[in-house]
């Protein structure tokens, strides 16, 4: 569980290294403050909204302030680990999800607007969706949708909301004529390493103790990241003469995303196939689709997380096998087309709901306080204008 906590800082450096020198603190701060805010929101009411049993839109409110959430395992979620531990584990999911979005509106969102938007988003988008898919009484869960470690709830959910935000906040100044160069790629690699490391906790931990499942998740997670990273490197090699570090890291993250919903249901060999296609689809989304439609999804949250998440969720419908996880189901390639359909429904519902509600919330925030910083502030950078700090000293 502790591992999962490292993912948010990991993400912070993954993103932070890719932005301009004048905006790196903006990224780090946004990730860091989410770690603070959502940790508190979660124990106050978020966990209850998401996981307290209830057939409705949200879970019930009986677990507010962790009331009744003790050490005794809550068998419907995890028979073997203390309820509070499960709660913490889920908290990390609730933190990383909004953090993923940061990449889309990077370098131009006002911090105050960011804070308000994120609290609203977690409450009105993340919590309900989490409830539907994972909560006792959640209707997608009852439908039989499989989401091992958050492909739908986390990645598609965040990815599509990010897509919305990128479109409506508009392009970065300077992004029109040229690429904004990553100011510190080693930080991006460091972040990737921490993400990869944390993801083991993310996926293996999602087996909630069941030993064999954890091992399988561990193996396929590593395999998928590796295969996807390699795939992207090769694609770069083919289309841009040289394999790039940023590309390899991006691919690896894409592979981790794609395997997330499938980690507990597929074999290592299937993982390789899933990973290869994950990279290919993301590669197309990032290098072909994005420029074509010209939205400025600054750090490709949509291209990597949404696309990867969708593919992963559907792939689960294709490659899932009872041989791996008896508690799971068989996918198309194992003679059960129905699962694929259910997965598709879950994906569709999440996309539709998340996009619409996120948009509404965004518009509210934008009207109330303008979501985007002024042009002058954008030129000076978020670090100085939003946080009154410089990331690095230039002369000493």
């Amino acid at each position, binding site marked *: 569980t502790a591992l999962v906590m490292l993912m948010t800082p990991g993400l912070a450096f993954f993103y932070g290294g890719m932005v301009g020198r004048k905006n790196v603190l903006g990224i780090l701060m946004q990730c860091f403050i989410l770690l603070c805010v959502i940790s508190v929101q979660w124990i106050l009411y978020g966990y209850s909204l998401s996981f307290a049993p209830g057939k409705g839109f949200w879970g019930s409110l009986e677990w507010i302030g962790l009331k009744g959430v003790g050490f005794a395992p809550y068998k419907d979620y995890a028979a073997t680990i203390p309820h509070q531990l499960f709660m913490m584990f889920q908290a990390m999911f609730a933190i990383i999800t909004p953090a993923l979005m940061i990449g889309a509106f990077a370098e131009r969102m006002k911090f105050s607007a960011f804070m308000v938007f994120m609290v609203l988003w977690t409450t009105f988008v993340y919590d309900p969706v989490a409830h539907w898919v994972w909560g006792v009484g959640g209707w997608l869960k009852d439908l039989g949708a499989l989401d091992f470690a958050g492909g739908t709830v986390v990645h598609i959910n965040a990815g599509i909301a990010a897509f919305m935000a990128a479109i409506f906040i508009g392009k970065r100044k*300077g992004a029109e004529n040229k690429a904004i160069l990553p100011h510190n790629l080693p930080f991006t690699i460091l972040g990737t390493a921490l993400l990869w490391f944390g993801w083991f906790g993310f996926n293996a931990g999602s087996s909630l103790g069941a030993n064999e499942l954890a091992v399988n998740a561990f193996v396929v997670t590593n395999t998928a990241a590796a295969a996807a990273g390699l795939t992207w490197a090769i694609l770069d090699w083919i289309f841009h003469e040289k394999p790039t570090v940023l590309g390899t890291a991006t691919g690896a993250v894409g592979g981790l995303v794609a395997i997330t919903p499938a980690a507990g249901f597929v074999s290592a060999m299937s993982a390789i196939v899933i990973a290869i296609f994950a990279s290919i689809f993301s590669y197309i989304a990032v290098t072909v689709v994005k420029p074509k439609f010209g939205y400025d999804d600054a750090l490709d949250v949509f291209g990597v997380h949404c696309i990867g998440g969708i593919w992963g969720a559907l792939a689960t419908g294709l490659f899932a096998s009872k041989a791996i996880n008896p508690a799971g189901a068989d996918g198309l390639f194992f003679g059960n087309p129905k699962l694929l359909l259910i997965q598709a429904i879950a994906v569709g519902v999440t996309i539709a709901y998340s996009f619409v509600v996120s948009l509404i919330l965004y518009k509210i925030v934008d009207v109330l306080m303008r979501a985007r910083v002024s042009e002058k502030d954008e*030129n000076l950078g978020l670090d*100085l204008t939003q946080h009154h*700090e410089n990331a690095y000293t230039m002369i000493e």
Partner: protein
Amino acid sequence: MKLIIAIIKPERLDAVKKELYKAEVNLITVSEVLGHGRQMGVTEVYRGVKEMGNLLRKIRLEIAVNESYVEPTIDAILKGAQTGQIGDGKIFILDLAECIRIRTEERGGGAIG
């Protein structure tokens, strides 16, 4: 021959480069500097200690040109760098006594381009 030194806003660099190429001024040397001018800096705060950040990031261009290129170069810089707002920067022009191309050792105006 003249040595033209221009201090501009970082975000204008691309525009200035474009204009310079249009004016067929292709050889330039660029560096990052901090400038203190009319434009006010942003206060920084570190653990409650206020720091009057009176130095702002600027880009410094160094361009050696022959007389005939001086005005076109200036115009190009003005075109690219001017926003009309405080902080746009300055252009300084110095007389260049001699210019040598290291590769060929040729001197004078011919070595500039």
